[in-house]
C-alpha cells in the first residue's frame, strides 16, 4: 500500500512498575486504515502499551501523537474524545445494564444533554435520546447481536459479550479501535466471525490496533505486525517477514 498517512505514532514510550520495565522505549507507527497487530509472549507489555495509549496508565517518558495531536497522559476520557476506543482483555461491560444500554453509554461522549435537559425533557433532549437509542440499535445490528438488545450484558454468551464490547467502543465514533485479545477463549467459528467483523470495521474507515495471541488470526488479518518481548519492540513488518524473523522465533520458542 502506497502513500500512507500516519494516524498514531508512539515515541519511545516507557513505563515501569517498580523495578520491572514493562515498556522500554517502544516506538511504532500506525497508518490510517490499516489493521495493525501487536503480538508477543505473555507479559511482553502489550496490554501495558494499550493502557498507556488509552490514558489508564501514565507513561514515564515518551509520548503518543494521534492524528497530529499529542495525547495527554492519565486522561482516559480525553483519549476517547480524540478518537481512541478500546476493549478489554478481561471483558469489562456494565453487567447490570442491557446490551442496548451499554452501547448507549458509549454515545455519552458524542451527545450533550445535561441535567437541565434531563429534568425538563425538552424536545432537543427527547430527540437526542431517540437518536442515541437508534444509533445503539444500529450498532447492535452491525456486530450481529441485535436480538440480545434487551438482555442484561452479563447474561450474554462470551462471544456476544466480546461483540457487545466492540459495539460499545464503536459508539464513541473512534478513528482507532484498539482490541485487546478479542479472540481469547473463542472457538474456531467464533474467531472466523470475529475476523469478518474486524475486516468490516476497517472497511468502514476505522483503523484497528489488535493485540492477539492467536497467531493464525493475526497473520491472516493484519497488514503489519509489531512484536514485543520483555517490553521492547523486537520487530515490526508485514506478517510474512515477521514470521520468519529469527528474533521473533527466538522470543516465542526460546528462553
Amino acid at each position, binding site marked *: 500500500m502506497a502513500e500512507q498517512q500516519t494516524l498514531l505514532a508512539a515515541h519511545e514510550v516507557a513505563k515501569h512498575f517498580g523495578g520491572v520495565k514493562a515498556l522500554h522505549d517502544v516506538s511504532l507507527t500506525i497508518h490510517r486504515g490499516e489493521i495493525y497487530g501487536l503480538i508477543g509472549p505473555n507479559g511482553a507489555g502489550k496490554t501495558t502499551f494499550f493502557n498507556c495509549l488509552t490514558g489508564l496508565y501514565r507513561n514515564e517518558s515518551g509520548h503518543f501523537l494521534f492524528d497530529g495531536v499529542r495525547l495527554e497522559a492519565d486522561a482516559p476520557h480525553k483519549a*476517547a474524545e480524540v478518537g481512541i476506543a478500546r476493549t478489554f482483555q478481561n471483558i*469489562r461491560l*456494565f453487567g447490570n445494564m442491557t446490551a442496548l444500554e451499554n452501547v448507549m453509554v458509549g454515545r*455519552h461522549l458524542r451527545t450533550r444533554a445535561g*441535567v437541565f435537559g*434531563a429534568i425538563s425533557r425538552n424536545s432537543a433532549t*427527547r430527540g437526542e435520546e431517540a437518536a442515541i437509542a437508534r444509533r445503539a440499535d444500529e450498532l447492535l445490528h452491525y456486530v450481529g447481536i441485535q436480538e440480545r438488545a434487551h438482555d442484561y450484558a452479563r447474561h450474554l454468551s462470551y462471544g456476544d459479550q466480546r461483540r457487545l464490547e466492540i459495539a460499545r467502543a464503536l459508539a464513541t465514533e473512534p478513528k482507532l479501535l484498539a482490541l485487546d485479545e478479542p479472540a481469547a477463549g473463542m472457538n474456531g467459528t467464533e474467531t472466523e466471525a470475529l475476523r469478518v467483523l474486524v475486516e468490516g470495521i476497517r472497511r468502514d474507515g476505522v483503523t484497528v490496533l489488535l493485540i492477539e495471541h492467536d497467531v493464525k488470526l493475526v497473520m491472516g488479518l493484519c497488514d503489519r505486525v509489531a512484536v514485543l518481548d520483555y517490553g521492547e519492540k523486537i520487530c515490526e513488518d508485514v506478517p510474512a517477514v515477521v514470521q520468519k524473523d529469527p528474533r521473533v522465533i527466538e522470543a516465542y520458542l526460546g528462553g
Partner: protein
Amino acid sequence: MNGPSTKRPYWRQHWLGLLLVVGVLLAVPFVAALGGQAWVRIANFAILYVFLALGLNIVVGYAGLLDLGYVAFYAVGAYCYALLASPHFGIHLPFWVILPCGAALACLFGVLLGAPTLKLRGDYLAIVTLGFGEIIRIFMNNLNAPINITNGAQGITLIDPVRIGDFSFARTSTFFGISISGPQKYYFLLVALAVLVIVVNIRLQNSRIGRAWQAIREDEVAAKACGINTRNIKLLAFAMGASFGGIAGGVFAAMQGFVSPESFSLMESITILAMVVLGGMGHIPGVILGAILLTGLPEALRYGIEPLQQAVFGRMIIDPESLRMLVFGLALVLVMRFRPAGLWPSSLRRRELAEATD
C-alpha cells in the same frame, strides 16, 4: 419519533393508583390533625425526610458515592435561611429568594467538598464526607466570636415563617369553610417539593447523565474508556444532592422558626443514609418508604411504648428514648441480614447484590 422512549406516559398507565395516592396525600394532614397538630408536624417531618433521602439518593443510589456528611448541606441551607430571614441580622428576605440562594450555596459547598475528594473511593470518601459534616457543625457552633454570625450553640430564633404576600404559613386560615392550620400548610408545601424531587429523580435516572452514573457504579474504568469524564459526572451528582439538601434545610428553618447546630449532628446524616439504604438504594418508592418508616416508627414507639409498658408491667422499666434506639438498631441489623438490598429494592439493585454474592 419511533425510538423506544415513546411509550404511553406513566400517569396514563397508572391513573387509578395515582388518584389513590393523591387522595391519601390530601387526607393525611386532616386525619393526622384528629390526633393533634403534633401528628401533622410528624407527617411534615416524614415528607421533609422523603425530600432529603431522595436528594441523597442521587449521590448514594445513582452515583454510588458513600456520603456520610449529607447533613452539612442541610445545615448550610438552614443557616442560610435563618440568617437572611430573622432578627439576628435584621434581614427579612422572602422565602422564594432565600430558598434558591440556600440551594446554590449548598451546591457550592458540595463542589468545594467534591472537587478535591472525588478521586477517593468507597471508605475513604465516606470518611472525608463524615469529617466535612462535623466541620460544618463545629463551625456553626463556634462562629459567634469574634463576630457573631451563627449565634453559636444557642442557635438562631424567631426565623420568619414562609410567607407569600400577606399569606403566612404560621397562621391558621380558612378556605371555603375549611380551616387549615400552619403545619397543614407546610405539609402541602412539602408535598409539592417532594413531588418535584421525585420527578427530578425519575427523569435523571433515565437520561444520559443517569446512564453515566450507573456506568460508573458498574465499572469505573470501563466508564472512563467510554469517554465519560467520571470526575465531573460524580461532581454533578454531589452538587445536585447538595442543592436538594440546601432546599430542605431552608424549609426546615422556616417551619421550625429555630435552628441550632444540634439539629445537624452526625446521627442525622446516618439516619438519612439509613433511610436510603433500608428502603432500597436507587429505587424511588423504596427510598420514600424508608424515609416514612424511619420518621414514623420512632414517633409511634415514643407514643406507644409508655402505655404498653404501663399495661404489661404496671410501671416503666425501660426509658422509651433508649428503647427507641434499641429497636432502631435491631431493625437495621435485621433488614441488612434478611433484605440486604433494602425493604423495597429495585430489580436492578437486587441483581447487583446477587452478583456480588455469587
